[in-house]
């Protein structure tokens, strides 16, 4: 049974990989391809957030880690002329270190203090990005960031970047799946159920929470670094608190503890955001800015109240019950 399940999963993965590889060929327009790329970047951040959610934590500072990753990699590649093969991993290491420093004192505190601390880090980092003009270029940002490249190969087109980012997405998902389906995953689920209970079972709660937090920050940094070399221009605004909320909505839609859900959540919310941006001005013509927050807020509340496991899990469960009901009759 277990082996059969494993084979079926491998088949699923191969099918998914093939579908993803074929997608750019079938993409109807350049716009769709760009959208797939953005979804890939967000999916990496969201999977990290879901990993964190598996331990019963939530962070409102993911955009800061996403942003630090982008700025570090962009600055190293642009000003020092280093290869992106070195700058992207370095950016990830820097962010992981920063997350460790943030987590050290705050992860031992109750949930809401941790949320508040990550929120504070997000705001501090955004202020620094705007104010440290000599380093970050301030509000006008950094231009002419080199694209991804190594050994003479350069990633210049959307399609090339698509394969890079989605390889990273699949790797990120598989690593996260591996973590959550083994010993660490069981420990995390115990912590999610009850921290005191987990500690009583001999689980080092603080250590596991720290590992997951650092890893989720590293995921965000990877996505940020890729973003910087993809768009080749960065400014503080895509890394504001609003972006952190956006990532949270994606993770919640997919289900805060469901790794594959993170992928679906990122895709669904990105597409929803595009639709809202296109349609809302028709309904409220004079409104600019972040009016979508109302819709996302309602989404958060409704999902947390009625489908705490996320919409994806809910849909899967519905499908299963229908199948089973169909099998009986």
């Amino acid at each position, binding site marked *: 049974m277990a082996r059969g399940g494993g084979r079926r999963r491998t088949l699923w993965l191969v099918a998914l990989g093939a579908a993803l590889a074929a997608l750019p060929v079938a993409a109807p327009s350049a716009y769709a391809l760009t959208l797939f790329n953005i979804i890939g970047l967000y999916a990496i951040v969201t999977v990290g957030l879901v990993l964190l959610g598996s331990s019963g934590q*939530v962070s409102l500072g993911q955009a800061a880690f996403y942003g630090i990753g982008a700025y570090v990699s962009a600055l190293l590649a642009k000003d020092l002329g280093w290869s992106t093969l070195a700058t992207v991993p370095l950016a990830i290491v820097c962010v992981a270190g920063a997350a460790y420093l943030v987590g050290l004192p705050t992860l031992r505190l109750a949930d809401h203090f941790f949320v*508040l601390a990550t929120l504070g880090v997000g705001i501090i980092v955004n202020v620094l990005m*705007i104010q440290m003009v000599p380093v970050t270029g301030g509000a006008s940002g950094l231009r002419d960031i080199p694209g991804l490249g190594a050994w003479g190969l350069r990633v210049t087109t959307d399609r090339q970047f698509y394969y890079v980012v989605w390889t990273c997405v699949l790797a990120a998902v598989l690593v996260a799946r591996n973590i959550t389906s083994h010993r660490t995953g069981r420990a995390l689920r115990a912590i999610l159920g009850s921290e005191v209970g987990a500690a009583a079972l001999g689980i080092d709660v603080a250590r596991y929470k720290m590992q997951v937090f650092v890893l989720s920050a590293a995921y965000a940094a990877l996505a940020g670094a890729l973003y910087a070399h993809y768009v080749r221009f960065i400014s503080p605004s895509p890394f504001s608190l609003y972006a952190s*909320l956006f990532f949270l909505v994606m993770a919640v839609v997919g289900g805060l503890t469901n790794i594959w859900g993170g992928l679906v959540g990122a895709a669904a919310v990105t597409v929803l955001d595009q639709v809202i941006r296109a349609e809302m001005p028709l309904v409220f013509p*004079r*409104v600019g800015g972040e009016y979508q927050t109302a819709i996302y807020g309602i989404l958060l509340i409704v999902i947390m109240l009625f489908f705490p496991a996320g919409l994806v899990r809910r849909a899967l469960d519905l499908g299963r019950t229908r199948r089973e009901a169909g099998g009986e009759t």
Partner: protein
Amino acid sequence: MLALLPQLVLTGLTVGSIYALVALGFVLIYTVTGIFNFAQGEFSMLGALICATLLATHAPLALAALAAVAAVAAVGAATERLVVQPAFGGHPLTLIIITFGASMVYRGIALMVWGADPYALPEFTPGPPLILFGGVLGRQALWAIGLSVGVVAALFAFFTRTVWGAALRACADNAFASRLVGISPRRMSLFAFTLSAALGALAGIVIAPISGATYDMGLALGLKGFVAAVIGGLGSAPAAVVGGYAVGLIETLTTGYLTPGYGDAITFLVLLVVLFLQREGLLRGARRRAA
């Protein structure tokens, strides 16, 4: 350098008194229900904007302010009944995300209703400002400081002299035990949300003549209120008030003496330092007693 000090201190006390009101509302909900209400700042925003709209219909200021406070208190009660109460007893994460969702809803709705442009509220009593120790103190600033001191005194009397105040304190102390003596924690939770929404609205209405009223003012105000409450240790109303003044002073002194843009970053740096040092806040003392 020193010539600037009196002015900065006076400004710090003014904004600090507003942060103190927000922090009070926040501590009230936290002690009674254990919920970190991330929508607290939005109550202030709604209060200020509703008051501005009522004033535009030529209602007298006092009436408009009272009506706005009452309306926001109703919003607070509705928030508790509709989205907070159903999630009671769930994972703490659920409630954090829900109150955050509520704050996003209010901000988004405010943007749709009032737009992004700031609204101006008139000063309560127009007139020339006071000169104190070489610093200028506007009349509205006096209103802000006076009202926050007055509200703290009134709350203190309410908590120590009335049955409802005692019931709230009992519920904050031990919800289970208070149920045994006939106090409904659910009703107290509703009451705490209503009262703290009213406090938040009052803070918004008082500060609006100084800083203007916009749909996104609640975020910054709420966050400063959280920092104030955390510095005060989250458990006591007087400590939260002191925390509010501390945050106000830190903010104006750093923006006055350092580069202006770093004000927010330094406020949150203080928050992180406080969290690092001790979870009880800098002002220890009677935790979970006064409010």
